[in-house]
């Protein structure tokens, strides 16, 4: 437990040192999407009986919690390949599970921070939705899943460039196709079937349902929790891969 808290504490210190830079970087993307898609393109457009801006905000929450949780991989890579601090953790008497838990918690923290930024931007744009327990549970599960994926991948990649490649091939397409900017059910049936395999599709669906005050789909929660746990175990198993 102490080892996990030490890892988490270090990541928080790093986040604190770069807090305003991080905050600015977390705000730029959602702001652009809100202006371009919400205020520009989506003006007067109704989706699922709501204004497009109301539809967009939960989608951005899902996307941002994914990208910010996944961004912990970059921090790990910098520590591993650039500053070589990963050696310091490996020489310490802490278990692999403590290391993974500390980093995943740091990923979730970053994700939650980015979600708060989006909700504030949404409030300033006049969008007020229901941010209830189901909403936050979905956000945490989505962040947990992608932070676990990030830690696992960060352990097996051989360079920072490999990590960027994975982001370009998996995270960016998912960000656009996982029900963030448009309802998945508007896609052709064959595409819908494929998109239902993406965890972000489920995350966007339940985050949106909760935010709209509807009953979210339990299966999606279970799926995110199950897949997240599986990826957490994989990340734990991958730590030894990074050893040599």
């Amino acid at each position: 437990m102490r080892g996990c808290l030490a890892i988490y504490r270090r990541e928080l210190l790093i986040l604190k040192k770069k807090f305003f830079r991080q905050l600015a970087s977390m705000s730029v993307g959602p702001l652009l999407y809100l202006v371009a898609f919400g205020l520009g393109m989506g003006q007067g457009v109704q989706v699922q009986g709501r204004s497009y801006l109301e539809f967009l905000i939960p989608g951005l929450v899902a996307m941002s919690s994914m990208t910010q949780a996944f961004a912990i991989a970059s921090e790990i890579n910098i520590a591993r390949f650039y500053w070589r601090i990963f050696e310091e953790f490996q020489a310490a008497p802490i278990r692999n599970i403590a290391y993974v838990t500390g980093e995943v918690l740091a990923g979730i923290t970053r994700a939650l921070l980015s979600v708060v930024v989006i909700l504030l931007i949404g409030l300033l744009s006049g969008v007020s939705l229901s941010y209830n327990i189901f909403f936050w549970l979905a956000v945490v599960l989505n962040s947990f899943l992608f932070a676990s994926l990030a830690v696992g991948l960060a352990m097996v990649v051989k360079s920072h460039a490999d990590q960027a490649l994975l982001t370009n091939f998996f995270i960016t397409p998912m960000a656009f196709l996982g029900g963030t900017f448009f309802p998945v059910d508007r896609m052709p049936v064959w595409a819908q079937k494929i998109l239902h395999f993406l965890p972000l599709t489920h995350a966007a669906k339940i985050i949106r349902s909760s935010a709209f005050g509807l009953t979210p789909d339990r299966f999606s929660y279970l799926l995110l929790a199950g897949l997240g746990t599986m990826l957490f175990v994989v990340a734990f198993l991958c730590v030894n891969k990074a050893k040599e």
Partner: protein
Amino acid sequence: MIRIEKLTKNYRTIQALKGVNLQVNEGELFAYLGPNGSGKTTTIKILTGLANPTSGDAYVHGYHVVRETLEAKRQCGLVPQTINLDHELTVDENLDIHGRLFHMSARERAARIDELLDYVGIRERRNSPIKHLSGGMKRRVMVARAMMHAPKILFMDEPTVGLDPTIRRRIWSLVKSIQQSGSTIFLTTHYIEEAEFLAERVAFLDEGRIVAVDTPQNLMARLGTWALDEIVNGDMETIFFQSREEANRHLGKQQGGFTLRRVNLEDVFLSVTGKKVVP
């Protein structure tokens, strides 16, 4: 204190260690010498839990480095070859995180940080981010960090590489004082004079094998006391003598074209391997 038995390590097609056997005693300052790529860092990585051996056994303070890895790690402090401090964080924060990783309480950490900052002479920079420190200061922070949890054994992998001679000597004094406080020190270096000055015993490693282990004095005495370097047919040859008189007799009336000097550890390494200990 450190026991290594038939240790091997393979990296794909490269055999980095080929059956190393070694014993380092408690309180000893032991130097592990060899050219780059000879397996020095690999040995340290295995002993500190950063790499697993392919075969063989290694124990630190009685704990097996693989089977009892957490206990073994608690006994070790590591000063790695490359500076691996958190550059965004301050000196204090770097030491504090290390203390947390080694399960020290808040009170223990605060007291130890105060003590170590004085010890390595860097107290006035405790709140400076690492990125604002000089190379020598960073090295001293690395030594302080490795000593934070009061390890039984301190592993120092090329601790003075890239430092200017003045700073290097400052680090040497620090290493000596750490040893005098009762710690066992396992030092790798390719600076021969560093090993000669610091070490009580040395081991020479060449292509993954230990080729000689003894005190620097005994190893050098095997060759003689004086070494005569001279150019013979375009190649430098070194001849060893037990006394200066013997060397003078050999030289006869020869004027110039030679250097007469004391035997050093590099001569020992050359004589057992035919190679120079330089990067």
